[in-house]
């Protein structure tokens, strides 16, 4: 078996190309609520992208939608999710058949979940989870149990867990941090090209978070997988991501390199998010909070969804919906884009900081 994850990313084409994806939930026989609107972004091999935003902005829905793991009432009515597969072909995940989708999942794109505390079946041992995963993706002759156990042990060592203790344990015998590490090891089992992490460290204490995040970025260097990192922790995003996308009310409202986003945010919402994080060093600054919450998805305001909470809003903001507009493109092809009618104006005024 050739191992594409060790190959250098010679091919310049994107690994994942999300084009105009809508995601909706059926709420009744005829009614549906659109949770994600026309999201587009490209993710190149080895790159990592953070999706940030408040709760309820559609980040998790988008993450689940990428693997078609939405709950029964969820659907992707529009758009394309193009994925360059290990065999070199490009497939739209939206149109994969059930069996093809099953084989695609985890072997090419794996996901570490928000609720990783409950990610393991309570009645099975950790080893059984590895066994089930390998067996489900086996082609040809079944491998021996001992062989799989050995490989699982190796994976657990990669995330700094003691395989002898963890493999035979049931999930409830492990701490939250250990379970999260074990899930990351499980996610790497089949050498996926893409890892989607949905708030992977939310329920953990700071030291455990730190250890996991560090190990994760080391592993990424080593194995060269791409990452979509969903978080509301901007610190983590700054650390792990090459690029950041801000989501608000189901739309991607600003994308750019991590540097661009943190030093030159061009959307007032991104700027407000950054301002709400207290600095770790420097003088005592009272972080500025952003009053209110994201609008209900069933009743979005007609213009810019953020306008009602935006202190720079003008009348036009409530009438016309801004599209994501490229502000500048860097030499390496990465661009900074924001969906704000006044972004250039505000940048000139210095209102969104520089």
């Amino acid at each position, binding site marked *: 078996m050739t191992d594409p994850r060790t190959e250098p990313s010679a091919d310049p084409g994107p690994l994942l190309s999300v084009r105009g994806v809508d995601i909706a939930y059926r709420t009744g026989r005829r009614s549906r609520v659109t949770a994600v609107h026309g999201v587009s972004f490209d993710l190149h091999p080895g790159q990592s992208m953070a999706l940030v935003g408040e709760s309820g902005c559609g980040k998790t829905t988008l993450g689940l939608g990428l693997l078609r793991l939405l709950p029964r009432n969820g659907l992707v009515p529009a758009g394309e999710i193009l994925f360059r597969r290990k065999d070199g072909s490009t497939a739209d995940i939206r149109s994969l058949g059930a069996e093809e989708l099953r084989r695609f999942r985890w072997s090419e794109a794996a996901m570490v979940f928000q609720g*990783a505390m409950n990610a393991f079946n309570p009645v099975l041992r950790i080893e059984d989870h590895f066994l089930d*995963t390998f067996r489900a993706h086996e082609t040809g002759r079944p491998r021996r149990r001992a062989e799989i156990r050995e490989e699982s042990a190796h994976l657990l060592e990669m995330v700094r*867990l003691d395989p002898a203790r963890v493999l035979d344990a049931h999930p*409830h015998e492990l*701490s939250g941090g250990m379970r999260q590490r074990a899930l990351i090891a499980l996610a790497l089992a089949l050498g996926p090209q893409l890892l989607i992490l949905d708030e992977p460290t939310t329920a953990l204490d700071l030291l455990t978070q730190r250890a996991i995040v560090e190990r994760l970025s080391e592993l990424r260097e080593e194995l060269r997988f791409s990452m979509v990192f969903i978080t509301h922790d901007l610190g983590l995003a700054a650390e792990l991501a090459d690029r950041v996308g801000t989501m608000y009310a189901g739309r991607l409202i600003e994308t750019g390199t991590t540097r661009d986003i943190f030093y030159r945010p061009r959307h007032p919402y991104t700027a407000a998010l950054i301002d709400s994080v207290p600095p770790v060093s420097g003088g005592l600054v009272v972080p500025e909070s952003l009053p209110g919450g994201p609008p209900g998805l069933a009743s979005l305001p007609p213009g810019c969804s953020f306008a009602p909470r935006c202190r720079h809003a003008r009348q036009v903001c409530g009438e016309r919906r801004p599209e994501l507009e490229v502000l500048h493109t860097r030499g390496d092809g990465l661009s900074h884009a924001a969906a704000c009618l006044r972004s250039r104006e505000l940048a000139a005024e210095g209102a969104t900081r520089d």
Partner: protein
Amino acid sequence: MATEIAASPPPPDTGTAAPSRDGAPLPPHLRVWRHYALVKVRKALVVVFVVANVTFFLGRAMPGDPIDVMAGRLTQGGMSLEEARIIAANSLAYDPGAPLWQQWWDFIVGLATFDMGMTINRPGFTVADSIAAYLPWTLFSIGVGTVIAVTLGLGLGMAMAYRRNRVLDHVLSVVASVLGAIPNYLIAMLLVVGGGMYLSWFDPIALRGTLSPGVEAGFNAEFLGDALYHAGLPIFTYVLAIIGTWMLIMKASTTEVLSEDYVTVARARGLRDRRIAVSYVGRNAILPLVAQIAISFGTLVGGAIFVEQVLVYKGVGGLLLDAVNYRDYPLLQGLLVVLTTCVVAANLVADLLYSRLDPRIRK
């Protein structure tokens, strides 16, 4: 590596405190598991003892003793009351003069030595013989009925959860609710009247009893076939009586498990649907229901008394009714103690089974 591991978050002290409670060094989980079982057995014995006492005193709290009852019957034939009492006293193995505490002591000592004494109304028969002659039929029909109903109920309930809010779910939900609302003796009557008399699917007269005339007990096809033939109606009644409840609780349990993260993760891991349904959904949905199997069994034992009367099935139900009517204290006590023991034993088995199936309890 070792230091890294040591640095990783809390080892056993929080999550797995239970086994090391008494600081036992060698196989701790086995020790504690035995301990767990032992606790359950002790509790079960206490329950049986309490029920035995309740039956003893309740039986005697009913108006009239065995001699009154029999004398009452004899006087209806024109005998004088005094004459009737003498005949009754002579033909019954009951001494009305024995003080209550004496009777109680004999009963408790008898229980402790597995001797439930002689019946009062069936001279020459011990209580144990009488129960042994009838109880197997009841346990057989209830046991088979429970197994069928639980198996079918689990399967249908799971199917309903997987297809919730579709046609199958709606139809089965109505059926299950209706079945759950009809008392079991009414189901028995409906079966006899509807299936036997109006539709003539079977001959309700030939189905009476536990065996057809001339069939001898033994391990052969004829006996087993005939036993099943006669038990068919009671079994079917029991199945209908509890299957609705099982469908509904399994549907609820499965629906809950389906929303668990580990099911979504299993889908994300690309596991096959069958594997997810059996090991991830099914197993976790059934776990909390294991204990309820014993509850169902207990419900049916109670219901059997009516159902067996309606279907004229010679199980323990008729015997119990006779024991009450004739104030046959030893038989009544013996029957209730044995039935209680059966139900308590079923609960015990369910508890122990649950502790084996759920690793979180096994400690």
